[in-house]
């Protein structure tokens, strides 16, 4: 029991570096041997003493032996995390969850907003296994773009890899939605696998497109996470606990939960909250 479960014990780490990605997105780096070995798609629970404990995907695994998470400021806990500075202490548990299964051949990555942060470690893995990577990165506007330079560096070999950036307002790259790009890509090309992380409605659209074209997909989900060890039942989608059997679900699994995926998730009290369609 003891050795296998060591990563689930909470430990304190010092914030050793902070990267200011945009006005309200920061990457917070710390030293932790378990996170350094995290698989792409895994997450940690971050404890801000006296405030809250929140789930965050690991976006950096080995930057001068530091690991990190990329945080968007949205509410109380993330705001407190934003106030932290170099040398401050946060508590972490994890890494938790399953991970993206790398694929060979032609693969596509589709991100929405900060979702790219959890796909970044996957790109690092994929460049070792996949022949060709198409990265479709959707953002609202130019000022919300993150990770683009780092991805350009990784996918610099233009003979094999492509990067397509979309912004909803057209302030950078192609104007429109990442899903529009996916739709037209799937008409012309075949992919061995699509990986996606972003707002759930976007991912649902990508899943539907993948199903239409009989393409396999892996989707990175978010649900309310409390225990992160599969006990408390806060994070169910269908029969899957997102905290433990996710975050990453496959096409077969998504078909089983297609009435929930993109339709509703549950609040802290288990009450269904329906996703708002904006279009």
């Amino acid at each position, binding site marked *: 029991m003891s050795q296998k479960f060591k990563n689930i014990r909470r430990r304190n780490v010092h914030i050793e570096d902070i990267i200011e990605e945009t006005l309200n997105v920061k990457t917070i780096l710390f030293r932790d041997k378990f996170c350094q070995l995290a698989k792409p798609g895994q997450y940690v*629970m971050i*404890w801000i*003493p*006296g405030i*809250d404990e929140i789930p965050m995907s690991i976006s950096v695994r080995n930057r001068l032996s530091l690991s990190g998470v990329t945080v968007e400021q949205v509410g109380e806990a993330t705001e407190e995390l934003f106030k932290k500075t170099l040398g401050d202490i946060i508590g972490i548990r994890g890494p938790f969850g399953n991970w993206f299964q790398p694929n060979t051949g032609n693969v596509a990555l589709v991100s929405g907003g900060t979702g790219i942060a959890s796909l970044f470690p996957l790109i690092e893995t994929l460049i070792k296994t996949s022949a060709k990577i198409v990265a479709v990165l959707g953002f609202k506007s130019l000022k919300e773009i993150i990770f683009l330079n780092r991805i350009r560096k990784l996918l610099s070999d233009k003979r094999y890899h492509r990067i397509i950036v979309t912004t909803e307002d057209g302030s950078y790259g192609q104007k429109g939605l990442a899903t529009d790009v996916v739709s037209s890509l799937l008409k012309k090309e075949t992919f061995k696998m699509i990986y996606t992380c972003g707002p759930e409605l976007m991912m649902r659209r990508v899943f539907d497109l993948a199903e239409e074209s009989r393409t396999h997909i892996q989707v990175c989900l978010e649900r309310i996470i409390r225990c992160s*060890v599969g006990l408390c039942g806060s994070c169910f989608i269908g029969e899957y606990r997102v905290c433990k059997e996710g975050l990453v679900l496959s096409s077969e699994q998504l078909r089983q939960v297609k009435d929930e995926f993109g339709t509703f998730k549950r609040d802290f009290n288990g009450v269904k909250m329906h996703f708002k369609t904006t279009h």
Partner: protein
Amino acid sequence: MPFDISMHIAGLNLRNPTMLAAGILGMTGLSLRKVWNAGAGAVVTKSISFQPRLGYKNPTIVDVGYGFLNAMGIPNPGVYEYVEEAKIAISEGELVIIVSLYGNTPLEFAKMARIVETAGVNAVELNLSCPHVKLGGMEIGTNPTIIDKIVKTVKKHINIPVFTKLTPNISDIKTIARAAEDAGSDGIVAINTVKAMAIDVESGRPLLANKYGGLSGPAIKPIALRCVYEIAQSVNIPVIGCGGITDWKDAIEFFLAGASAIQIGTAIAYKDVNIFGEIIKGIKCYLKRKGYNNIKEIVGLSHT
């Protein structure tokens, strides 16, 4: 060769004597089905209250090495919404579902019990024992008079079996168990978590957002076993043992102490839902090896 380990307890026919403990998974109908399909003989739901409860802020669970500390704060969608989840669970043919109830007054317990009885559930379990939620400033499970009122009121309103779940955070658990039996409870579940806490030495703060909570898992097994042993000596209704059961040996210990069935919670974090299959197999092997025909033969055997 199939070896029958079915159990008849308080009017319920269980295909085996293992149950999912209250508050573990259980937030949705499909989560209960998952545990049933993994082999449990019955599933107990999250504790349900009349109104929805958001529960406490995180951290709600802390791994303390020999078990978990939790202070969830009974998060649940309220009885009316939860009934729909219960129905999803019930729609799985044979599934045996016990709804755990957490009320503010005896009548509130009874109203909820009627609602879930009408929905078709098999039994209710009264959570009179949560160590970190209070009723009118008093821990309800420590007062025999309050227990008497709640159990009697619920029994008056429903016909399905009523189990009473007790807290170990009391000097004499026998008195409380007897109060529940005298009030008409069909069985006793023991134990809920042991009131406890943990402090982070760097920040100097309690780790749980609620500061204190309940300890579960291997650390509390000896306490739970002692409670079951004492209760079995003092009541005639069936006792369901719960607390730290992690393998078949633990389960057998509880039967020998006087439990007719067992509940499993925290160990799911270590072994996932496969634990039900593993424990059932272990129980069968034990009975066979020792030459017993069924579990009844070993219930309470350590008392003789």
